[in-house]
């Protein structure tokens, strides 16, 4: 829960040291959680909290996943893993094989369509991630898929960019 909204921001923060702009910054209302993590030198006004430790970009305090992406996005009405998700998922698989701990795969949908159907869609997305990890050799009993449907959006706006952030699976 703690990192769900922060992850894209962190990614943006890291990227923004190389790129000129980071277009899909979430609304500030969704960034107020987890204020004590990911202290970076973000200059944008989207993130109001977060102090600078040594003035260096480190993004170090994501201990649970060691800096690997934990949120995986999906296309509209789709539960197929995107190619860009696979590298990070393989790392998750290797870690779960080396260090078997139970994890939750929380599936989410955007707000379009009906709520219970979106619950099913969120579960399908979670199951896609689960199947991929199992294929990599992870013990299936470690992985529980829990769908939140459209009930826990990462971004609250009714826009394409919000919806893209909401169609996701979070590994926790």
């Amino acid at each position, binding site marked *: 829960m703690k990192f769900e909204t922060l992850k894209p921001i962190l990614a943006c923060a890291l990227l923004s040291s190389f790129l000129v702009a980071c277009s899909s910054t979430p609304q500030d209302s969704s960034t107020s959680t987890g204020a004590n993590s990911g202290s970076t030198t973000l200059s944008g006004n989207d993130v109001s909290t977060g102090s600078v430790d040594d003035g260096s970009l480190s993004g170090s305090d994501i201990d649970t996943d060691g800096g690997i992406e934990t949120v995986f996005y999906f296309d509209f009405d789709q539960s197929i893993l995107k190619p860009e998700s696979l590298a990070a998922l393989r790392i998750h698989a290797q870690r779960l094989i080396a260090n078997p701990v139970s994890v939750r795969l929380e599936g989410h949908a955007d707000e379009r*369509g009906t709520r219970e*159907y979106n619950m099913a869609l969120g579960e399908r997305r979670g199951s896609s991630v689960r199947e991929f990890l199992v294929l990599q050799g992870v013990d299936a009993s470690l992985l529980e898929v829990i*769908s939140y449907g459209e009930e826990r959006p990462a971004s609250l706006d009714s826009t394409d960019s919000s919806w893209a952030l909401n169609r996701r699976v979070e590994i926790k």
Partner: protein
Amino acid sequence: MLVRMYKLVFLFLLMPLSAMAELSIEITSGVDNPTSIAISPIMMKGGPLAEDISAIVGADLDRSGLFAAMPRANMLSNPRALSEVYYRDWRIVGMQYLVVGSVIRQSDGRLSATFSLVEVAGERALFTHVVKGRDSELRDIAHYISDKVFYTITGIKGAFSTRLAYVTAINEGGRQVFRLMVSDADGARERLMLKSKEPIMSPAWSPDAKELAYVSFETGRPAIFRQRLDNAKREQLTNFKGLNGAPAWSPDGKSMALVLSKDGNPEIYLYRFATKVFTRLTRHFSIDTEPNWMSDGKSLIFTSDRGGSPQVYKLNIVSRKVERLTFNGSYNARPRLAADDRTLVMVHRSQGIFHIASQDLVTGDLRILTQTRLDESPTVAPNGAMLMYATKRGNKGVLAAVSIDAGSRFLLPSRRGDVREPAWSPF
């Protein structure tokens, strides 16, 4: 006032929370030639009443879209009984009907309201009736009068005494807080049923309107609960891995259709309260969800994407025969039936916009009923005259209603937060 009964979850008895009343009514359009009716002020001899009965009746009839209630300020006289009615006063202002009445306090302390419906052109009373209740039931008395007047004039049973259940999501301290609420059909007398920091979904009424089933995530995963309205007593019905959702009480109240994915993907199950046995009804690798009962209790309608896109199907519980009902468009979901079992209402996507549509199951005619976007969760009033649904206004979730003929509409805007998933109670 607040009883802590469950970790993070607060249960309330049916206790009025007037300070929280979040819904108000905003009529957006009515029929072209509504029936004109005047509700003469219904007062108590020898003392004020806590509620304005005539105003509630007028608002009820206005909200139906079929009536236009006369503003009190325009009335030429305020008769309280048939003997005080001067027909001329109502004829010259074009009133078709007039309601007169008065309230007295009986020796046992209860209130007794006598009221008459008058047909102005015929200069005759259509009925005179008396209804009794406690001081706390003044709104019930008013809705009772509305039901009686509505039925006498339209021949349609009034649904003004029914209730709504719905879910609110309000941002409190950076976190969404979810509440399951019950109110009168006009949005008044809102009561809290359940409050949780985890999502609450899919409220469904028992056929006797005494209980609600719903999905709550309070245990960390979705689970189906049933809860009584009168004493807040509740029971967790399911605790399976995966989906536990879309509860729908059978018409006889003895079982529930619901969705579980414990066997791999979402399937519809029948749960019998007496035996506590779950019987799997669908068997398909696609999504099967959102069951709802036909009134005979022998068939379910549900959403499935077995044909490649979400469509509405009908399932015979005995033969397990499945029949597709919708063919128009690439998204038809969350079906509900009007009490006649003939009018299907559902979420229908048209040109990328999610509307509420109705489909006549005999003729197959599809009709888009709503003009808003991101519409969902249609629920039909038990008299079949109106349906309520959830939509977005700006970025806020609100409830809206439309008559089944799409002739009249109203909104129930909330003062704060999102309101969603309305469920209209049975009679």
